[in-house]
């Protein structure tokens, strides 16, 4: 177990180094220091000011190799900063990135955790219900509805939700965010609803397939033969077995709750890490962007290990070697 974890962590470390390298190269394909500086100091600033800015942010160093001092390159700096968690400050407005992460994590979690939990609490029982009624008209209708739900673009859900529920019916504020507990639920209601509906189709379809597959297993027949009712079979036998493959999907998502949803946060004006990322892209804010991606990949590696561990907890057949 321990050896396994160590090996996985080592693999993860290599992955993260790969991500960092990739990120560095990509950035210079996408933007130059002049672009970053131009966005930061504004369209009207004279060229000397641009140069001052570039020098002040260290973007005038050699990129990969400095014959005088190998440690004094942008690449080395990039790795040093990321690996020591010294993220520095944003290229766009000089705010310390760690502060930005702290500010963004709250709103992201405020949306993503309820979304995640509700998604499971609604999706899995519904899938189980549909599987319970398998081969009947409810199952077929449920399946068709979930394929219908899946076939709609996420954009349309958001646009439609804002238009119909926000504008026409006036049930919720169309967008916005305020962390004070008095008004927070009102802001979260619509993105939650939209996020749930958008994710429900695929979720139900996947989970249903898993459950239906389980119901054709021999042990279900055994349970039936000993006199267990259908409901009991579903809840005690099928659910538990079906949850194992579902769990792998689910646990992998947990770390990403922190990074939030780019689309939902952007459209609904939730100042979480997802919209920080979009803002960083739009503002050429490489310093923030690389931090976000770095943290994302860190969480990904963590999530994978977490998934494996949770697998061993849920499925007695699996032991990590």
């Amino acid at each position, binding site marked *: 177990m321990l050896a396994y974890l160590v090996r996985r962590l080592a693999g993860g470390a290599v992955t993260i180094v790969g991500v960092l390298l990739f990120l560095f190269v990509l950035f210079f394909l996408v933007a130059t220091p002049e672009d970053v500086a131009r966005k930061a100091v504004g369209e009207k600033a004279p060229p000397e000011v641009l140069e001052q800015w570039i020098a002040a942010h260290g973007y005038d160093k050699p990129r990969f190799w400095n014959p005088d001092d190998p440690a004094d390159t942008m690449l080395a700096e990039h790795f040093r900063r990321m690996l020591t968690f010294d993220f520095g400050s944003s290229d766009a407005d000089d705010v310390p990135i760690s502060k930005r992460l702290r500010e963004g994590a709250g709103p992201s979690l405020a949306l993503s955790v309820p979304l995640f939990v509700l998604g499971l609490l609604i999706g899995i029982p519904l899938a189980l219900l549909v599987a319970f009624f398998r081969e*009947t008209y409810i199952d077929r209708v449920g399946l068709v509805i979930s394929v219908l739900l899946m076939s709609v673009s996420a954009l349309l859900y958001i646009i439609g939700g804002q238009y119909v529920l*926000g504008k026409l019916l006036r049930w919720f504020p169309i*967008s916005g965010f305020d962390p004070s507990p008095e008004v927070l639920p009102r*802001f979260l209601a619509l993105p939650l609803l939209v996020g749930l509906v958008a994710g429900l189709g695929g979720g139900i379809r996947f989970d249903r397939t898993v459950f239906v597959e389980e119901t054709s297993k021999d042990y279900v027949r055994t349970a039936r033969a000993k006199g267990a009712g259908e409901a009991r079979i579903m809840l005690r036998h099928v659910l538990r077995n079906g949850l194992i493959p579902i769990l792998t999907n689910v646990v992998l998502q947990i770390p990403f709750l922190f990074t939030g949803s780019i689309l939902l946060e952007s459209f609904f004006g939730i100042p979480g890490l997802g919209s920080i990322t979009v803002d960083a892209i739009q503002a050429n804010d490489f310093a923030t962007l690389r931090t976000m991606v770095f943290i994302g990949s860190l969480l990904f590696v963590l999530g994978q290990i977490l998934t494996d561990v949770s697998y061993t907890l849920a499925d007695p057949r699996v032991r990590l070697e």
Partner: protein
Amino acid sequence: MRGALRRSAAVLFAAILAGCGNDPYPLEDSLEKILYQPFDDPPKTLDPQVAYSVVDHQVIGYVYDTLLGYHYLKRPFTLIPGMAETVPEAIGLSDGRVAYRFRLRPDLWFHEDPAFEKFSPGTRTRTVEASDVAFSLLRVADPAVVSPVIEALGKISGLVDFGKRLDERRRADPEFAALRIDEQYRRAGPVDGVRVLGPLELEIVLDDAYPQILYWFAMPFTSPVPWEAIAAYDGVDGRESFAEHPVGSGPFVLSRYDKRSRIVLERNDRWYGVLHPEWKAPAATYPSEGAPGDAEAGLLDPDYVGRPLPFLSRIEFRREKEPIPTFTKFLQGYYDASGVVKESFDRVIQKGELSPEMRGLGITLAKSVEPAISYLGFNMDDAIVGASGGERSEKLRQAMSLAIDSKEFLRLFANGRGLPAQTPIPPGIFGYDAGYQNPFRQPDLDLAKKLLAEAGWADGIDPTTGRPLRLTFDVGDTGAAAMLQFGFYTSRWRRIGLDVEIAATSYNQFQDKVRRGAYQIFTWGWVADYPDPENFLFLLWTPMSRTKSGGPNTANFSNPRYDALFEQMKAMTDTPERLAIIHEMRSILEQERPWIENFYPERYALYHGWVRNEKPAGLSIPTAKYLDIDAELRALRRAEWNVPITWPAWALAAILVVVIVPGVVTFLRERQ
């Protein structure tokens, strides 16, 4: 009695709404005089010496007070004294230089802030003095601050040299670099052009005549900042950065700065307008006179004239990335003012006036043409469309200019808001001539085709290939909406036989193309920093050329005569002679066509009935201190406008039941 009744009704409605509906604000705020405004991009910085974008200035303008200001009502824009007691006159010095002498008001205070405590324990604020203004000017020159306006303020004698000196000493001497900031400035000084004559007296000396300098004193770049705040908020070792923690002396204090979602400004009770209403200071009192029509528009309401400012207790900015939801929230009563989004234009405006529906809601409309221009430019360094093509290219540019129907463009994309532009100078700026019609800006496809034939591209066909002449329109926006607009231009050019391909790239790649000079046709805009023609005509001045100096002359236009006239014009006051020079420059541009002047944008601003004293400015100057809010009326209206419609929920539930119940029944029957 009636007031009390209204108030309690408002509270009641607000409470009902807060329980279930879409009210984005907490209940206890519903009866406060709070101005709610949306903002899109978060401010980049709140450092007054650095901030240069509209959204930055929206916040900074209230936190940092300026020495001068603009009259709220008068047009064209007129400078009035702010923290300074008077607007200074230019004083000619014996050596040919020009000086301005500012005298500050007494008893001006900085906002309360812990930074002061750090250096003189027990105090949380102190008075503003002339040396603080001088300190700000030196900050503009400090290379570490990276101020974008050093170009303009560098006309102050010795200021640029001071910056160089400071930079060199910091590099050479780490000990110097570690000194407190005011000490560094003192040792690197003095600066010849910035003279502190007394605690409240400051003299500025310019190398050459530059009358526009006074406008810079109406902008936050010259606002006094306390050195204590700079020293305390250096952004190092987890300390806050000054760009995020402003300490000013303006009418509002920044009380909350979640810049990605919410910015809150509270009224500053230590502001001189509040402390000394008896001064009747022009920038702290509601004006008693205005432009023609202001009285009719209710802007000279005797209830307000002569009253001390500000009227609001708070300004709340909420972040809104999408214009349409923002407008919807305005219509729901959750924002107090709004532009008109083009999508809702026909509902809001009919025949140039507010629609009856909007009037019924109590909304008012204010129109203003902005001191800004949007134009299509040619890269004059390009072989085909540029200057080297000689007369042939000039005719091509003229033909292309004739093909663009700006009026139609405005009709399609801006609901006709805006004026088709004839010259680079927009209305409201000296040199604008409403009667002038640029002969190459009157859409005429036949004349365009004729010019094209004269240029050797008859019908747009390139004789060497037998195909239409192929040009490239370089754009830095790939969004769907923008593509439609670019498509409009190319479809117009197609009519005269020019095949103009849109090369849409990311903004970065576009910038890169511009840097390398690898572009043919582009579109750009310019918003005035201050109301003077110099601020527009320099966009085509050779020293500002993009490929040579990285300046804003993106067309790389270069004409010796034009340059000479510009030099002459820029230091002049608004005299008939100046006008004559501007007209000559105009005729050069008319013929050479480095730009196709597209349009001057027009702003339509909507205000709810509960907002008082609104008059749009165009320039990005702070005006909210003149506004007032009738909060009770607002609470009532919000309650009235936001009753949720719930029947669809019941309908949906009913449908679900209808779908599910037969299924369950069938299932149970089958199982038996």
